[in-house]
């Protein structure tokens, strides 16, 4: 290690255990100036733990970190901030009731305080300046953070990290929350960082993306570094093999090149309009068909998912089930008519984090759990939850464990699994593989193929174009709440074609 090429961050033999669980063992790691490094690995491989150690969120058991050649032993995130390490964590860290602007400078509003009063104008001007400098989209700064969508909340956190003018920027699973256009902005931002001779450390489950935007990739497995490789030299299959430790069997996406579906229509949408976010959409979903929806952040595709499930009171137009002659007006009706909805935000909108796995599994299917006198039977609840737990290979202690302690992939298995037990006709998926590793991803895709074969109609809303292209029979590209173009599998079904319409 010469002085000229001294790494900005150097880590030696870092270890961390949680009780008997070894999260990290003897991690050796070097990050150069101007290097963009990706961390990849399955859920639970120790990526987030490593970042938390660097960020001062978790104290290390053993090992040493050097920052610019000096010993770096952060006791809290404040130490990390002071040494100009900016972090965006995986789980959303904004305070919902405070304004977006205050959230950016939270804990550091002193600079804008005169006589105990925060000068919000000055603060917001500063934030806009930061956003402009780094080429980020504007977000409404005066609204309470909870009224903003996941994407804007992620941007708040990104701005918070950028506000300290970091020499190392650490991004844990941020791109999955962003839509296509904001991802592009983030990629540009990362390149700017590189040009300035600063470093970026990034975690993502989207392997294609991370290989594209990084210089090097460090693969972690079971808390150990497997290897560090050049991003432009490594193949996806090699990466996956290193991550999992074996070949991933079976296909990831669909391999058939032609669209397929049954004749019967399971869901018919006519002139669906939600305020100005979804405008007069009409389409039919056939049995055994996967219908993909993609678009930019303001396209309204996520609102469409909610409206299809009867969750938007402002929705006009009709969501019809032609086979039953039913018109969906509420989520209760949707539930009763065997429609399922898996929302984008797993922790806030999909799962009861502090409740048991069992209760999360059984919530949509209580009608089938009745025993004597029409009362819910504990045995039936337990049996159903155990069955689903085994069928989905959820890694947990038992069905009475709280969901909050599980990894992202296992949470998503519960989020999806609770619907599959039912006799569904329509499944609405909003970003179903967000924040899950390759193993679970391939599992979810296999599940979708099985359900399609069984004759379910699937609505797939996603920010990942490759996923849409890999799975859908037809794709609707949505722009400003309207269907801009319909593409059919096998005919001009490419990333370029979709992006061209999207932008």
């Amino acid at each position: 290690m010469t002085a000229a090429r001294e790494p900005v961050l150097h880590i030696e033999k870092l270890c961390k255990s949680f009780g008997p669980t070894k999260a990290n063992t003897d991690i050796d790691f070097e990050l150069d100036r101007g290097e963009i490094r990706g961390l990849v690995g399955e859920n639970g491989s120790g990526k987030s733990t490593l970042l938390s150690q660097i960020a001062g969120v978790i104290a290390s058991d053993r090992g040493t970190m050097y920052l610019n050649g000096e010993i770096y032993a952060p006791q809290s995130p404040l130490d990390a901030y002071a040494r100009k390490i900016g972090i965006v964590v995986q789980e959303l860290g904004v305070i919902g009731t405070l304004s977006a602007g205050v959230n950016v400078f939270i804990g550091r509003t002193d600079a804008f305080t005169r006589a105990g009063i925060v000068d919000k104008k000055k603060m917001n001007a500063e934030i806009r300046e930061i956003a402009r400098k780094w080429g980020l989209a504007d977000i409404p700064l005066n609204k309470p953070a909870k009224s903003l969508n996941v994407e804007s909340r992620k941007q708040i956190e990104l701005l918070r990290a950028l506000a300290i003018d970091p020499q190392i920027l650490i991004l844990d699973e941020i791109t999955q929350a962003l839509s296509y256009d904001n991802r592009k902005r983030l990629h540009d931002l990362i390149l700017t960082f590189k040009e300035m001779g600063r470093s970026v450390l990034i975690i993502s489950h989207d392997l294609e993306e991370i290989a594209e935007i990084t210089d090097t990739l460090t693969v972690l497995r079971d808390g150990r570094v497997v290897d560090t490789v050049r991003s432009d030299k490594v193949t996806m299959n090699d990466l996956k093999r290193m991550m999992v430790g074996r070949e991933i069997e079976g296909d990831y996406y669909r391999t058939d090149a032609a669209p397929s579906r049954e004749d019967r229509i399971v869901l018919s949408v006519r002139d669906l309009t939600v305020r100005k976010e979804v405008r007069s959409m009409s389409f039919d979903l056939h049995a055994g068909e996967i219908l993909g929806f993609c678009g930019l952040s303001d396209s309204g595709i996520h609102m469409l998912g909610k409206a299809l499930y009867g969750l938007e009171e402002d929705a006009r137009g009709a969501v019809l089930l032609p086979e039953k002659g039913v018109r969906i007006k509420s989520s209760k009706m949707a539930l009763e008519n065997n429609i399922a909805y898996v929302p984008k935000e797993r922790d806030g909108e999909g799962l009861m984090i502090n409740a048991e796995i069992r209760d999360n599994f059984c919530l949509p299917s209580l009608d089938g759990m009745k025993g004597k006198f029409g009362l819910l039977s504990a045995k039936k609840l337990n049996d159903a939850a155990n069955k689903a737990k085994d069928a989905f290979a959820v890694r947990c202690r038992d069905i009475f464990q709280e969901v909050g302690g599980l990894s992202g992939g296992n949470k998503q298995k519960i989020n999806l699994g609770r619907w599959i037990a039912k006799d569904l006709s329509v499944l609405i998926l909003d970003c179903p593989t967000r924040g899950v590793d390759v193993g679970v991803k391939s599992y979810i895709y296999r599940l979708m193929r099985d359900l399609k074969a069984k004759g379910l109609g699937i609505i797939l809303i996603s920010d990942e174009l490759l996923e849409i292209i890999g799975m859908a029979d037809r794709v609707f590209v949505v722009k400003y709440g309207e269907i801009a173009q319909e593409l059919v599998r096998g005919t001009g079904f490419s990333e370029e074609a979709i992006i061209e319409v999207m932008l």
Partner: protein
Amino acid sequence: MTRKKLDAGIMTSLVLLVAILVFFTIRTKGNMISVFNLTTIMDQALIVIIAGLGSIFVVSLGGADLSVGTTLGISTVVGAALADATGNEVVLFPVAITVALTIGFSNGFLVAKLKVPSFMVTLAHLIGMRGVMLYVQSVSSGFYRAQSLLLTLKNDAFKIPILIILIIVMHFILSHTKFGTYCKAIGENESVALNVGVPVAKVKIIAFMLSSFMASVAGFFMMAKVGGTNNTMGINLEIDVLMGIFLGGVLVTGGYSASVVKLLIGSFTISVIKNGMVLAKWSAIEITEVTQGVLLILILFVMILLKQRSGATARPDTLPKDPTV
């Protein structure tokens, strides 16, 4: 593993109850656990338990019904006034229940449809309805004397079986029906419940109506006990009811932590403290209330500690919930 381990909240509150019972038994040289005294404790806990059996549903939603005391008062006073005017005692029951259900519906409707936090809505009812009650009391013939039918509720042969039936029924509704589960799911996370297809507004309205209904039932027992109505009926009942629920180990956020067993343990704990204080001749009300307050903080502290030890709250990934229940 198919059996569920015992809830930490129940264990903590049970240990607390036993500890207090043992303490007062030693302190009063055994008088505490005499048959006569245990009946007295039971009698004191009765009204809190009955009102709590309804209130627990609102708590499970993550809300609080502060209007149970007033609802108890106004429903029985109006019922009694009409029974008095018609000269027919039976009139009391349907009238009182109708008044209670109306208040409950109003609570539930405002909370569910206008998204006003429940403590605001029920606080408004607590204050406003108390005024209405005093007015009714002043224009009617005044003190109503409980008559034969009502007085049968004083008889243990009726009182105890009715109480047991109510406890069993409410336990099954909370723990073994779709409605009860939906209440708890809303308390865990309202967005999740809505996204799954729970008719959230309807469930909330029913929960508030159930709370008010049980308040009026508690009112009948109170009338039997005191021999009629008066204008202080039900004052501060909401405090005892909520204390009972929370001392029993139910979380303020409601959800799956809510259970009738916890309500029973908590309500008895309060009665034991109040009764023990009197027996130990520390009868000043200040001491009783300070003790209750200290114990509530203690039990919350222990429960948080237990939860942290089990690692259940180690991940900070629960989003802030909208406080609209």
